């Protein structure tokens, strides 16, 4: 097999290189085309990750296509360590797929300072890809922070009327969380270094996942890591930055925000919080479950009360991501895989919704539903895509949203950690509410007689707009009817992650005071080959 090991780093940094190139370009057109070319090439290259990925041996233990370069010498075990496994493969691809789509959606939407916008957008892509690919917690942290800066400027410069307020709010919320996480990274690095790494500070994910953090420290670390990610998700009641950020961000920003930035939170919970702190996670699961379920219902009800389309979709994200969080803490194969695929699904369908709303806003310069009405008549193609995305988002079987929601709920129902079918039943009411607020939006915006003459003369989608929506719609159908290729690629990773977490939790539980717990990662019994050692320098 060809050597794909450098490919991942290329995929991660290509957008950043593109951003540098942009800075030297003179015209808006050159900038747009370069940005498009960069993101498109990145996407094409990332398909190589899919092809080079072997679903048969993937566990959370073994990152594939990995690169590990030490960074600070022997005294500090921090390395540039990136790889692909069943947990991040789909999210990496989602990120690269949204790249060119976001560039295309900004084509005419962004009217000023093209250079800065596209450069930041590309930088953002590198940041997000780095977050998903990191197998070193410190490296993860750096990428995590790297995503913050471009997003703030995208909101603050190209956003709507209250952009400064929204940008600042976004910064504060996220910084509070991520700085807490920095504390956690240092704490965990020293603790693990002392226990399992010969006294050398380490942030190697590989080593950390085998280390059983003592109970007391687990709770503290769970709190700081958990808080950082739960703000990012965002989990009720930490969500109030989201509606403002979404509403004020330009279309491209909203799409990236909803599509992938929020997933950094849920991904963090899955990659770090659950396997690093399994005892605390399991013990907190009922409470996290309550917050998630409150978020599902609450987000839906508040969404229903909105008059601004983008705000409505923003609150729907609060609701939908509640499902994901619920599934993550279920410690159940079906539920966790459901959560994982739901992260991707949400990126696709909510991304599509923001894209379409952006197209409306570009035509009419308003987000208020009251300014529309009856436009199904003037923009039938746009309406078609809207209905499609709405029903995908509402979890209609046959489209992608259902797959994730169904698996999360059916898995959480029997989950020992969530431990309460009533809670899951309440979560399930989310499928009713989703229909309520989404159809209400369609009703107000698309149906009825056209009352405003401006709506009657609106132009329907052009080729570029159709082209950027088509792949998303195709994915909605594909992942709705045949999610198997996607599910298969996360199957073993999730299994090994859950098993490892459970084994470790039991070991920590039974460990005496001061005893160091190290649990080798659970390896699926049906894989004959022994795990290859992690690439070492």
């Amino acid at each position: 097999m060809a050597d794909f090991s450098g490919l991942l780093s290329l995929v991660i940094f290509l957008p950043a290189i593109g951003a540098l190139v942009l800075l030297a370009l003179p015209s808006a057109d050159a900038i747009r085309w370069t940005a498009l070319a960069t993101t498109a090439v990145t996407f094409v290259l990332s398909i190589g990750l899919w092809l080079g990925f072997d679903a048969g041996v993937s566990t959370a233990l073994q990152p594939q296509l990995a690169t590990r370069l030490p960074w600070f010498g022997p005294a500090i075990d921090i390395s540039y360590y990136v790889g692909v496994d069943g947990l991040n493969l789909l999210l990496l691809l989602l990120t690269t797929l949204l790249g060119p789509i976001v560039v295309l959606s900004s084509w005419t939407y962004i009217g000023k300072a093209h250079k800065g916008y596209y450069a930041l957008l590309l930088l953002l892509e590198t940041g997000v890809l780095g977050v998903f690919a990191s197998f070193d917690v410190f490296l993860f942290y750096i990428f995590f922070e790297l995503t913050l800066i471009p997003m703030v400027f995208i909101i603050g410069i190209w956003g709507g009327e209250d952009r400064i307020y929204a940008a600042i709010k976004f910064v504060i919320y996220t910084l509070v969380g991520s700085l807490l996480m920095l504390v956690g990274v240092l704490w965990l690095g020293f603790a693990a270094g002392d226990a399992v790494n010969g006294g050398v500070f380490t942030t190697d994910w590989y080593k950390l996942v085998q280390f059983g953090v003592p109970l007391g420290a687990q709770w503290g670390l769970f709190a700081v890591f958990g808080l950082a990610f739960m703000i990012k998700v965002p989990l009720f009641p930490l969500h109030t930055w989201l509606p403002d950020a979404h509403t004020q961000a330009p279309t491209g920003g909203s799409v990236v925000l909803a599509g992938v930035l929020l997933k950094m939170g849920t991904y963090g919970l899955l990659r770090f919080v659950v396997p690093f702190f399994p005892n605390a996670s399991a013990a907190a699961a009922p409470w996290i479950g309550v917050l998630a379920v409150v978020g599902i219902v609450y987000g839906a009800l508040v969404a229903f009360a909105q008059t601004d389309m983008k705000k409505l979709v923003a609150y729907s994200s609060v609701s939908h991501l509640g499902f994901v969080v619920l599934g993550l803490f279920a410690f159940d194969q079906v539920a966790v895989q459901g959560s994982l695929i739901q992260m991707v699904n949400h990126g696709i369908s909510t991304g599509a919704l923001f894209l379409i709303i952006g197209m409306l806003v570009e035509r009419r310069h308003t987000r208020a539903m009251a300014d529309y009405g009856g436009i199904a008549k003037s923009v039938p193609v746009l309406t078609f895509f809207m209905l499609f995305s709405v029903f995908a988002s509402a979890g209609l079987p046959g489209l992608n949203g259902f797959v994730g929601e169904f698996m999360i709920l059916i898995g959480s129902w029997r989950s020992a950690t969530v431990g309460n079918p009533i809670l899951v039943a309440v979560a399930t009411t989310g499928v009713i509410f989703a229909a309520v607020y989404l159809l209400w939006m369609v009703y107000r915006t698309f149906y009825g007689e056209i009352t405003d003459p401006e709506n009657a003369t609106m132009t329907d989608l052009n080729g570029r707009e159709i082209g950027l929506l088509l792949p998303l719609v195709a994915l909605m159908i594909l992942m709705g009817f045949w999610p198997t290729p996607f599910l298969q690629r996360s199957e073993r990773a999730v299994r090994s992650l859950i098993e490892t977490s459970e084994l470790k939790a039991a070991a920590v539980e039974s460990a005496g005071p001061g005893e160091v717990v190290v649990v080798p990662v659970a390896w699926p019994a049906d894989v004959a080959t022994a795990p290859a050692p992690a690439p070492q320098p």
Partner: protein
Amino acid sequence: MQLLVQLILLPPLLVAAFNGMMGLFAPGYRKQEWVLGGLALAAVAVPFAVTASLFFGFVEPEVVRYFTWLEAGSLRVDFAYRIDQLSLLMTMIVTGVGSLIHLYSIGYMKGDPGFWRFFAYLNLFIFAMLNLVLAESLPVLFLGWEGVGLCSYLLIGFWYTDLKNSAAANKAFIVNRIGDFAFLLAMFIVFDTVTSAPGFAGTFALDFQTLLAPETLALFTGGTGFAVCLLLFIGATGKSAQIPLFVWLPDAMAGPTPVSALIHAATMVTSGLYLLARLSPLVLLSPDAMALIAIVGAVTAIMAATVAITQNDIKKVLAYSTVSQLGYMFLAAGVGAFFVAIFHVMTHAFFKACLFLGSGSVIHSMHDVEHKLEHKGLIPSHHGPGSHDTPLDSEATNDPFAEQHTERVRGHAILPYDGPFDAQDMRTMGGLKRYMPSTRWTFLIATLAIAGIPGLSGFFSKDEILFKAFEYGYDGHLLGYIVWFIGIVTALLTAIYMTRAYLLTFEGEPRWPDALDTHPHESPWTMTVPLWVLAALSVVAGFLGLPPVIAEAMGTESWIHHWLGTEFGGPVAELAHEVVPSHGVEWGLLALGAGIAIAGVVIAWFGFRFGARGPEADRSLRKTMGVLYRPASRKWLWDEAYDAAVVKPVVEGSRRGLAPFDKKGIDGTVMGFAGGIRQLAGRLRGVQTGVVQTYALGIVVGVVAVVALVLFL
């Protein structure tokens, strides 16, 4: 078999996609109505032919598997379909009636700008419905279940420029979703129960083969079984329009009439019954759930019948009639006679589709009258293009107590009621038999069939339901006698309201303005042929399920019982009785049923004389019904009650409660906290700096402190 099932499932899907995409992106194609409609018709006719060949050549049940849909851990759901007696019968009905209605629609929707959309939706509906009836597992069935809900939504709101239609569409989808919510919970319990049973290994697909195996069924006794049955039944009340979730169906009449015939009468609304019949071995394990099903069915039947008798909108009469007839089917399921419920599903599909299509033919024609009158300036012109059916009658136009205070607008004719001309209002009709003979005769046949006149299909299926209820009572369950009695009363009401509808529409003198010079017309052959076929089926279909005594006397047996019943190798279980009534009692009950039906027709025809007196006869009806009339004519205030109890609190709660709470409560607290830090930092510094820097500073200071704490302690 693999190929044959593909030939059933794929044509409607592919043609829906083709017509939809072509119509959307190639506007020129929209005008090719015969190509478009012909393709759509073929996409249903081909599956019908294939199904027919499987049906007549049926040997034994078979499961066909395609690719995997959901797979994770112990869950593994394939796209698998079951070909057995029950699914074949349902598929025959769906594709058979579906083909006729597609043909009819080519005539009915002629010239509508949304012609292409209509047929794309209709084909998509057929695909979803076929998934529903052919599915081998609950999730795949659910795919069809929600799919038909989607198509129902799209078709009810088909003429979306009228917001009332869109509102009805939303209501239908959301109310159905409430039922679907229960369906989902039932699946969760089933999955949990089976996969956590001792000795379980491997994967579970929530498939019928595993679920209905004796060793699995043993897990579903007692509370678990009751919970599952109850939840599935709630799901069924949504789709099949029973109390408490029936409220969407009358509003669903906002859709084009062929849609009402196909989706909201013949096929989709019977899927709840199909679900119960499919799971009949499971349902039989929960006597409590069955009792509830019987009670809900009976109460729904009589409640809807009393509403139907007071309605003036012809489609509303049929809508409530459908709710009522579905109630009969649930009654049958509740007393353990699932195969009889399916029998009534079939006969009802024929006569109710015939009635709806007949009403469509009438409405089509009355619209023509309306346009002529508008043209003559006799009624004000208010119609935009592209809408055949008028929106639902408002409360005022349907309220018989409303004073008639139409003032004669200069030059405009006076209508027999308050409000604008309404092509669906039977009070403007009358005497149509002169102009529309085919429509009239088929409507009359179907009316007599649903009324239960001996020899016609409705007589056999309805009387079998009542007999089964009676038999249940005879076997020592008081409930059986109670629902039987309710059923008998409902049968009388059915005969009355259907005869009333027929008489008001077709008999007597024309009541629309300028009736001497403005004539309606008979519909084209595309519309009358389906009417005649369905009328013929309404006559003969009953012989497929002869009552035991008659069958015995004729030396034959009930075909449908043999085809479906488990004791003959079919999939539909039934409740066995220890004590059964004698033949004499059976004959007596048959005679009673026949007498009730005839009495109903006679009461409406010669008692109230709806034909001769027209809407005037409603005054006598009102007197007869006494205090019941007013609430019945207002649909027993279900909508108002739900509005007050559910809709208003949720809407107001989220608008006035939660949304402000989110802004002021949660966001306010967080921002207040942040503000507090800022003030604190500002005070510490003694300088009011800019916002960002101060925040950042405060946070950095805090973090450094915490880090220092961790590192040095």
